[in-house]
């Protein structure tokens, strides 16, 4: 059945059944594939998107329950200055290896910096604790977020 979802600032018409998640709709219908299906249980964080400005799991969000919410995926943050600083820092510090977790990590990091512009290392670690990465050991990811925060300072 047709749903109207607000995605990256546009209203998109999608087809969804009762059990279809936001993640399935984003990926299979809208081909917005930055959000990944790593576990479909809300644990890994690879599907993290912003729902009404807060990072949430697309895999745990029923599409039908997202009507009326503003959904932002990594694709929708390409012109965002804070995201641009994060992307640059992730590249420069070697925070990206396989990259599968990266979109979710970036969305979480973006949310972290939006309410804490100058996080300490332990705050970054806590802020990203819902995003698993199996490649990096996290150190360079945490360093990259700190670098992006530093970059934002006047």
């Amino acid at each position: 059945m047709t749903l109207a979802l607000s995605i990256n600032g546009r209203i998109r018409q999608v087809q969804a059944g009762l059990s279809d998640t936001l993640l399935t709709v984003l990926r299979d219908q809208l081909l917005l594939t930055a959000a990944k299906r790593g576990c479909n249980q809300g644990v890994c964080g690879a599907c993290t998107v912003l729902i009404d400005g807060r990072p949430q799991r697309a895999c745990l969000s029923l599409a039908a329950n997202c009507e009326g919410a503003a959904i932002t995926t990594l694709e929708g943050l390409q012109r965002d200055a804070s995201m641009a600083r994060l992307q640059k820092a992730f590249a420069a510090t070697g925070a990206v290896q396989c990259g599968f977790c990266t979109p979710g990590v970036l969305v979480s990091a973006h949310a972290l910096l939006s309410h804490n512009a100058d996080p300490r290392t332990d705050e970054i670690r806590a802020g990203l604790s819902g995003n698993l990465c199996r490649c990096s050991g996290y150190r360079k990811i945490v360093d990259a977020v700190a670098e992006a925060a530093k970059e934002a300072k006047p």
Partner: protein
Amino acid sequence: MSATAKAVGAALPRAEVREKVEGRAQYIADLYRPGMLHGAVLGSPHAHARIKRYDTSEALAVPGVHAVLTGDDFGDHRMGAFVKDEHAIAKGKVRYVGEPVAAVAAETEAAAKLAARLVSVEYEELPAILSPEAALAPDAAIIHEDVASYFKVFDTGSTANVCSRTSLTEGDAAAWDRCDVIVEGRFATQPQAHVSLEPCGALAEPDATGRVTLWSANQSVFRVQANVSESLGLPMAQLRCLTPRVGAGFGNKMEPHIQPIAVKLALATGRPVKLILTREEDFEIVRARHPFKLRVRTGALKDGTLVAREVEVLLDGGAYADDSPGVLGYSLFMSPGPYRFRYMKASGTLVYTNKLRFGAFRGFGNPQVSFAGEQQIDEIAARLGLDPLAVREKSMLRPGDKWFGGAEVGSNGLEECIARVKAASGWAKRAELEPSAPGRKRAMAAACTAHISGLLATGAIVRMLEDGSIVLNTGAVDIGQGSDTALTQICAEALKVPIERVRLASPDTDGSPYNWGTTASRVTYTTGRAVVAAALEVEKQIKQHASEMLECDAADLELRPGGRVGIVGVPDKAVSFFEVSARAHWARGGPIIGHNSLVFEKPSVDPKRAIAVGLPFPQIGAFAFGALVVDIEIDETTGKIEVKRAWSAADVGRAINPLAVEGQLEGAFVQGMGLALNEEMVWDGPRLANPTLMDYKVPTTLDSPHEIHSIIVEAPEPDGPFGAKGVGEIGINVVPAAIANAAAIALGKRFNALPLTPERVLRAMLGK
């Protein structure tokens, strides 16, 4: 990067990083084809059973279903890296819970999954063999009745549930008589799941001639081709295998997962079929790190000099051999660690059980044998009242020493690795470390390791395009570790061109030279060698053209930074690569293409020094070395261990990209920490009890120390590309051993089993 900057040794960002940070990188699940169907599999509910009959009628009645396949639809073709014992899908028997018994292709993923559940299979249950000891019992049920007749890469007499045996012996057993101290113990390690963030998947698309294009998450596009070909009985040339971005591997994507099933579904329907495993299926049916049972004995003189060691391994290979014979052989080969022993004997038996196959996982058996061996060195040091790193330094392999069995060791930076971790960690003052809070115990400990990088065949093609830019094609799969970047840097360095002028082609069995795979810490070293050699071919051709253009002898020419070639000592006599390539394309000689292929050829064993039976890798590789110091705290209330800091040094020959090298060491450390402290696949009877990320936990940011200090040591490998060796695995090998050594110092108790959970530690503390 400026034209004059060096490419090799530069901490450059990943070549493909932009698409990854923008969310544009395409992994297997991100691919969609017109008319594409979705696949799903049904897993066996039994660990061991005979399949009596199938009923697919209900599944076929589900709207949108195009094909339902069972073992009856597959021919009797078997695949396997060492033993050809595995069908593409269960046929006749099932041998572990979750083993695919039926597959469906349907219009939607939901319909495919629903239909798969509706396939009815009638089984005759057989006794499930759930431990290697049970497999060896005289009256044990036989898992592979035809094991003796299976094709094997090497055959050491497979009988009953024994898949293979390996032994390697060097020196005189009389050395035991000289030992002043002998420590002996039994050790057990647990199965670990890879948990690549990306679950395995494949997309197969047939064309009108029956040729199939197969994209899949893999570590070797050529192993995919070989395995699909073998298990479906298709000529290799009928398959074109491709690799999109891969969301990490760590070993679980080296050999097949469900690629053959995806191909069969595509051929049956004539439509593209995408089959992506769920996380649960990825846990249950791909592969996992081997649980080891070890008996290890190490002897030393009273001054700490290591003298003799014996290692005996009983290896649970799971239901199919997969890479198990390799893991067994490699673990035995590495079991002395990087030390001189007068006598060394290592032997092992690999058995089948009714669990999922155990296979390649970063370290490839080395972490398990190191867990035992590196603890015994600390035990010896403790008994003798010596500094455990001093004991290691006394007996470490020195430059020129050969490996166990007689393999030549080209370069050896172990001494510097140890010196560097000692200096960085404040090793000399380790006894003065204070716990961060009351109720905690703190300790620092170390361990050392070596690892090979090498093995088997690889190739490289370097092509100069008309404008003088370069396309490098190696067939090597970058699984996230950064080989695309490293190989690009090597190529740019060899041709003295800016890195932006070199681009890497994606692995494609139609167009890429053979590459055995991204495994064995081998791509930078082996493929890098081929890239350097192929670039040299290109250089020769460039110089030939330039000598004709500049009217000079080719021997008087040099490559100049920025893509030019000129006469030595005459700065203004030069032509650009563009001019050279244009001439080649349009006037003389034809396009410039350099290629090289090689297979690692140095012998693993010198038959005059050692006796080897069933050693799977007769030509193995170059040796890298490493040393690790960890600083841990133990919560006395609960027994929970926290790693506060770590210093991981690795002799990588030459760091082609230091940022990527650090990334390998840091990531390997945390993965090893998971193995050491918490991760364990647990079976509840025949069924995996924790095949989800809810129940199987990997370290998060908050569980991982921020202070993981990577220390790069460079002892150039004589034949490595710019001296480089591999770094993919060495950082994981001794993480469990070093942590166990620290726990032993903190608590005065030795741990012979992994993982060091709060439960195991608290029980040891309390003697319960």
